[in-house]
């Protein structure tokens, strides 16, 4: 057992804990936010600016108008020199601040296995120094389209630009600084939705409203079994799972929140585009192609998606058909169900949109190692696409007219 090795054992325990709770590994005041980056810390949720005071955390409405300290970690506090009015009140109160909460799977978490670990021609010794990658479950949410916020500097493990829905929401209203939660997990499906909602750190009475994006994009139809169809989520169960998550959200979210349901991906475009291309592990001898990888995955029953990563076109079509069926349920819920504390909306899947409208070259869009997830270059396109969809809905709040003033007074607002 790999997890019985010294040192690895500790990492396994940490990962097991965050796998079940999605809560930060290190959270001294138990408010759901952490000052540590990895282990479900600030790479996933806004950094806690005071981790020994449970009253201080990102996303809350300011405590005592933040006259003397920054209770919501958005970097805005103090009083105006001439009027002695609270800056938080003056710059933020009327701006309708809100946080971004992303509930999703490995696409939302930005799963990325560095090619330098697999490709012998690129293999690099420093590339192995990736304990933080492991503590983040081989995900890179800090650079992802949902809640990315870090610039990628010289890094052989990941390269490209960062743009995200959170960054855009923050640029729209600087009072939203640090108010993000990425509750995505590799392999998550509608079954896990309830657990993800449970792990939201939001107080209905003391915190700002939230924009929740529910994007379980593929694992209800993707599994690793030979009889993959029998293991797909049935429409009835899918509806029940989603409704359970929405009912729980209604209990947790502050009034005037919004929930956006995202259509499932239809990834039948992967096999035809990738099958005949060389996989990084076969680059040296030109002897392993993606179709070999898919066949091996399916033979061992360990692949991420038997339905789509499969030479059988009928099976790929059936998988897409089921995904479409589940998406119609999301659309139906968004049209017909109402909730007390939030409005529910539905948007097209950004990957489907980009593929159907020929906006991308598929082979340049996918991760080279697994060929299933969007790569770093794709993250920017996903952000742009989803943001365009969101702009058509009443979910983003107004642009804060005080943004320039906030930047002038508070600069980077304490960073992330």
């Amino acid at each position, binding site marked *: 057992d790999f997890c019985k090795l010294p040192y690895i054992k500790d990492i396994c325990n940490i990962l097991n804990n965050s796998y079940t709770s999605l809560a930060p590994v290190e959270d001294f005041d138990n408010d759901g936010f952490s000052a540590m980056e990895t282990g479900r810390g600030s790479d996933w949720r806004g950094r806690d600016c005071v981790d020994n005071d449970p009253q201080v955390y990102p996303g809350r409405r300011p405590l005592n108008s933040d006259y003397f300290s920054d209770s919501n970690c958005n970097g805005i506090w103090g009083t105006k020199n001439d009027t002695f009015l609270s800056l938080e009140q003056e710059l933020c109160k009327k701006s309708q601040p809100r946080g971004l909460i992303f509930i999703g799977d490995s696409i939302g978490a930005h799963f990325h296995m560095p090619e330098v670990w697999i490709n*012998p021609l690129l293999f690099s*010794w420093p590339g192995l120094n990736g304990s933080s990658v492991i503590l983040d479950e081989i995900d890179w949410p800090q650079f992802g389209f949902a809640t990315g916020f870090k610039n990628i500097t010289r890094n052989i493990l990941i390269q490209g630009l960062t743009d995200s829905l959170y960054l855009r929401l923050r640029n729209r209203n600087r009072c939203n600084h640090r108010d993000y939660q990425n509750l995505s997990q590799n392999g998550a499906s509608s079954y896990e939705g309830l657990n993800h909602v449970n792990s939201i750190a939001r107080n209905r009475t003391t915190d700002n409203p939230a924009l929740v994006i529910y994007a379980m994009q593929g694992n209800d139809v993707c599994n690793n079994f030979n009889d993959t169809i029998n293991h797909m989520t049935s429409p009835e169960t899918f509806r029940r799972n989603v409704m359970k998550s929405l009912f729980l959200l209604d209990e947790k979210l502050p009034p005037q929140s919004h929930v956006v349901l995202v259509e499932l991906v239809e990834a039948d475009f992967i096999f035809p585009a990738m099958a005949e291309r060389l996989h990084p592990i076969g680059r040296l001898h030109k002897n*392993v192609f993606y179709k*070999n990888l898919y066949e091996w995955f399916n*033979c*061992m029953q360990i692949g991420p998606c038997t339905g789509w990563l499969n030479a059988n076109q009928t099976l790929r079509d059936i998988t897409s058909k089921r995904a479409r069926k589940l998406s119609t349920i999301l659309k139906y819920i968004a049209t017909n169900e109402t909730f007390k504390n939030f409005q529910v909306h539905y948007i097209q899947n950004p990957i489907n949109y980009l593929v159907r409208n020929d906006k991308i070259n598929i082979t340049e869009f996918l991760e080279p190692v697994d060929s299933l997830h969007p790569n770093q270059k794709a993250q920017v396109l996903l952000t742009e696409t989803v943001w365009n969809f969101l702009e058509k809905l009443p979910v983003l709040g107004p642009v804060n007219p005080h943004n320039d003033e906030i930047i002038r007074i508070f600069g980077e607002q304490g960073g992330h």
Partner: protein
Amino acid sequence: VNGGMSCAVCTVLTGVTMQIAELHEEDLFNATKRLCNVLPNKIRHPCFRIVDKVEPYLTNLSEKITPDLFCLVYGTCRVDKGQPFCHLFPLTMEQEEMENVLKKEREKMLPKI
């Protein structure tokens, strides 16, 4: 099936290590030692000890052994009843020859270690 994820990890690690050894014109023993060297302190020395123990095996590995076959010999991968032999890398020999090579390799000390 057939060892599942542990088998997959073994196959990929062995595949990368074998190819790195080839690129650096060294044997699997030295390539594996180089891998140990970049591990965190606490597991670096156990890694060296394990590699030293299997040295006779690693330095005399048949050239026909692919990463899939190595993990099959080592025992991380297996062929379950009613299941086919799953392989990521192309097969380099016919079934009969493969069985002979596997038998010879299994007689060496690695599986016991």
